[in-house]
C-alpha cells in the first residue's frame, strides 16, 4: 500500500514501565526487537493475539542499539557489549566487549553482512556479522569537546549501497567513511546541532543524534536539535540538516515550528520523496520533510518522547519506541 504522510494515524499502542531506547524489525515475521532501560532486549510479536514481550537478558546497561543482520539480531548497550543472538532460537551466540564506554547506536549494513557500533570512546567499530571479527576501527572524532569535556559519538548510518558509513558526534562533526578501505573520505560540520553555554550554565546539550542517507546516496540527512537558550530542557527546535556530502556542503536546514527537542531517528521513504524524523522534548514529535520541494510537509505530536523507530519495507508503517511506550502508526490511506 502506498504510504502517505497525510494519512497518518495511530494503529496500536503498548504501554510499558521501562524506557525503550532502540528497535529493530524482522521483515519476514514483523517481530520487533526492542532495547530497554531494564538492560534487556524485548521481543514483541505484533502478530500474536496478545503481544506479551519476551525479555532477553545479557546486558548490564541501557540497550541503545538493536539491528537485524543476517541470521542474527545484534544488540549493543551502555555496558559496552555487543551480543549476537540467533534470530530463531534467540540464544546468545557471541558476546564482545566492543567498547570501553557507552554504546550509543548499532546499525546493520543493507546486505546484513556488517554491523557498525558507535560509542563514547569516540570510536566506530565495524564488525563482520558472520564471523564476529572486527573489520575496521574508525577513529575520526575528538575525545574532548573544545571546552575540555568528554565528547560523545551518538549516531551512525550505512549508505543504501553499503559502500559508505557516516558517523556523527556531539559537537556536530560528521565523517563519511569508505567501507572498501576503512578510510575517511569526507567530513561535514553541523554545528547548529550543538549548544555550548559558556556563560549561564557552563555545560552543553545537543549533538548529532541521527543520520540517514537518501536512497540514491546523494544526500546525507542529519537530525538533532537547534540552538537552545535554556539548556536545562530540550526546548530547542527540532533540527534537520541536509548535506551534499560528496561536495562537503550543507544544502538545507529546517527547524520545527511545532516540534521541539531532539530528532533521534531519521528515515527516507524508499523512493526518496520525503523523509521522516522523530524524537521530541518531554513530548514526542514527528516531522515529515519533502525532499523534492525542500519544505516541511507536516509536524505532529505523538504520545511519548521517541528514542528510535523503524519503518515497514514500504514505509507505510512506523514503529516508534520511547518513554514507556511502543506506538505503531499507519501512513496508508
Amino acid at each position, binding site marked *: 500500500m502506498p504510504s502517505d504522510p497525510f494519512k497518518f494515524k495511530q494503529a496500536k499502542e503498548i504501554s510499558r*514501565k*521501562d*524506557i525503550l531506547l532502540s528497535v529493530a524489525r524482522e521483515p519476514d515475521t514483523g517481530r520487533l526487537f526492542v532495547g530497554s*532501560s*531494564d*538492560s534487556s532486549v524485548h521481543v514483541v510479536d505484533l502478530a500474536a493475539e496478545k503481544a506479551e514481550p519476551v525479555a532477553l537478558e545479557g546486558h*548490564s*546497561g*541501557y540497550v541503545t542499539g538493536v539491528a537485524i543482520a543476517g541470521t542474527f539480531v545484534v544488540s549493543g548497550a*551502555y*555496558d559496552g557489549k555487543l551480543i549476537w543472538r540467533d534470530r530463531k532460537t534467540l540464544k546468545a551466540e557471541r558476546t564482545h566487549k566492543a567498547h570501553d564506554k*557507552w554504546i550509543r547506536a548499532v546499525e546493520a549494513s543493507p546486505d546484513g553482512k556488517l554491523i557498525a557500533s558507535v560509542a*563514547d570512546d569516540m570510536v566506530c567499530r565495524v564488525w563482520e556479522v558472520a564471523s564476529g571479527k572486527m573489520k575496521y576501527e574508525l577513529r575520526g572524532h575528538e575525545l574532548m569537546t573544545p*571546552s*575540555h*569535556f*568528554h565528547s*560523545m559519538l551518538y549516531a551512525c548510518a550505512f549508505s543504501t549501497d553499503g559502500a559508505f558509513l557516516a558517523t556523527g558526534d556531539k559537537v556536530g562533526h560528521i565523517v563519511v567513511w569508505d567501507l572498501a578501505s576503512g578510510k575517511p573520505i569526507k567530513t561535514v560540520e553541523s554545528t547548529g546541532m550543538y549548544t555550548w553555554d559558556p*556563560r*549561564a*550554565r*557552563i*555545560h*552543553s*546539550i545537543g549533538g548529532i543524534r541521527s543520520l540517514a542517507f537518501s536512497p540514491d546516496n546523494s544526500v546525507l540527512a542529519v537530525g538533532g536539535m537547534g540552538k537552545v537558550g535554556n539548556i*536545562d*530542557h*530540550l*526546548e530547542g527546535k527540532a533540527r534537520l540538516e541536509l548535506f551534499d556530502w560528496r561536495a562537503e556542503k550543507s544544502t538545507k536546514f529546517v527547524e520545527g515550528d511545532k516540534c521541539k*527537542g531532539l530528532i533521534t531517528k531519521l528515515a527516507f521513504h524508499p523512493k526518496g520523496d520525503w523523509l521522516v524524523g522523530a524524537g521530541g*522534548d*518531554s*513530548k514526542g514529535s514527528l516531522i515529515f520533510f519533502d525532499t523534492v520541494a525542500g519544505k516541511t510537509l507536516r509536524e505532529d505530536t505523538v504520545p*511519548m*518522547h521517541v528514542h528510535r523507530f523503524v519503518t515497514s519495507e514500504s514505509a507505510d508503517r512506523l514503529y516508534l519506541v*520511547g*518513554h*514507556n511506550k511502543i506506538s505503531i502508526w499507519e501512513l496508508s490511506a
Partner: protein
Amino acid sequence: MNEKKQFCGSADHGVTRRAFLSRVGVGTALLGTSGAVHTFAEEGLTRALKASGKRVILLWLAGGASQLETWDPKPGRPTGGPFAEIPTSVPGVHICELMPEMAKRMKDIAVIRSLNSRNADHGGGAVLMMRGRADEPTVKYPDLGAILSKELGRADSKVPEYISLYTAAEGRDFSRVSSGFLGARFNPMKLSESMTPPNMKRLDSISDADHHSRAELQELMNRQFIAGRELPSTKSHANAYARVHGLMSSEQLFDISHESESVKQMYGPTLFGQQAMMARRMVEAGVPFVRVARAWWDSHGQNFETHQEMVPELDRVMAALMDDLKQRGMQNDVVVVAMGEFGRTPTINSSLGRDHFGSAWSVAMFGGNLKRGVVHGKTDKDGKEVAEGQVGAGEIFATILEAAGIRHDKEYHVGARPIPLVNPGIKPIKEVLA
C-alpha cells in the same frame, strides 16, 4: 564633606571617600594599586595558618546535582539511571562510576546520604542550605560564610574573610549570600564577572612611589587622628583602610599563573578547576571561607548527558583539592564541602531528565574535624525516601561548623535577644565528626 570630592584628589580613582569606605565595608569593589603589605607570599604562612584555625571551601553545586549520579547510586533499579556503581577504598561503599578519583579517596571522605531538606525550590533551598534554617520575619540569619568569617577571621587580617566565586550567570540570584544580622562587615567579596576583583591593578597614571607616599600619608594622618580618640568608629575606620591595603596587596592571590604546571594539571583546564585552585590559594593565605559555585546542574532534560559532562569534572576537582591540601599539610585545617540547594528526583522524566528533589539526597565533605571514610544514613532501594539516619539542613550546617572547630551551640545576640548559631534542638551529625 562634599560627596563629589575625590577622596585622594585624583580624578583617576573616580570614587568618593564615603563611597570608598562604604565599599570597603561591604567588601565588594576595590580600589587598585599595589601596596606595601605582602601577606600572601609570606614564608611559613601555612604553618601559621595551621596554628590559627580552620578554613572552609564550599563547592556549591548550583542547580542541584543528582545524588544518584554521584554519592548514592541505585544501579539496576528503575530509578537508577544508566550508570554503574563502583567500589571504593572503603569496603562495602559504592559510588557512581563517574567518580573514580573519589572512589580511590573515599577513605578520606564523609558522605551523608540521608538529607531531607524538605525544600525543592532553587531560591528557598539555597537559602536553607546556606543558612541552615529559614529566616524569621524579624531575623535574617547569617549564612555559613558570614559565621565562619566572623568566627575564624582575624582582626588583623589583610585578606578578605569571605569570598564567593559565582561566575556563571544562572542561579546567582537564587543563591544570595548574606551576612544577615551580623551586618555588612561579614558580607562576602563577590567575584561574579571574573576571577579577579575589579580595579585591583594600580592605575598606570599613579606611580608605585606615589602610591606608597599616599598610603604613608594616610596612615600618618590616621594615627594622629586616632590618638586620644579611642572610639569604635575611628578604629573601624582605620581597620577598614588596613583591610583595603591588604586586599590591594593581594593581587597575587587572584593570579593563578604562579601555580606550578603540575598543580594546574591536577585541577584541570576548566573554569571550575581554576576557581577551585584559586580557593586553595585563598585558604592558604588565610581566607576563612571561600565558596566556589559550579553552575548549573538543573538537568530537567538529558540528566545523564549533563552528569556525564559535569561529574567527571567534579571528581577531578575534588580529588585535586584533597591531594593539594594534603601535599601542603593542610588536610586537617581545611574543610571541603560539596553540596547544592537540593538533589534530583529518582523518577526519570520523559526528557530523560531528573527534576528538583529535597527529600532524600547527599552531601559530601572532607578535612577539618571530620571522620574519614564514613557514610552516614541511607535511602530506600529506589532512593525515594530516607531509610535511616535522616538529617535536615540544620544538621548539615551544625556539622560543618563543628568540622571547622566552631561550637554549634554558640550564641550571638541581636540586641538583648540570644540567637544560637543553629535552631534549638539541632545537633551536628556525630557519626561523621572525629
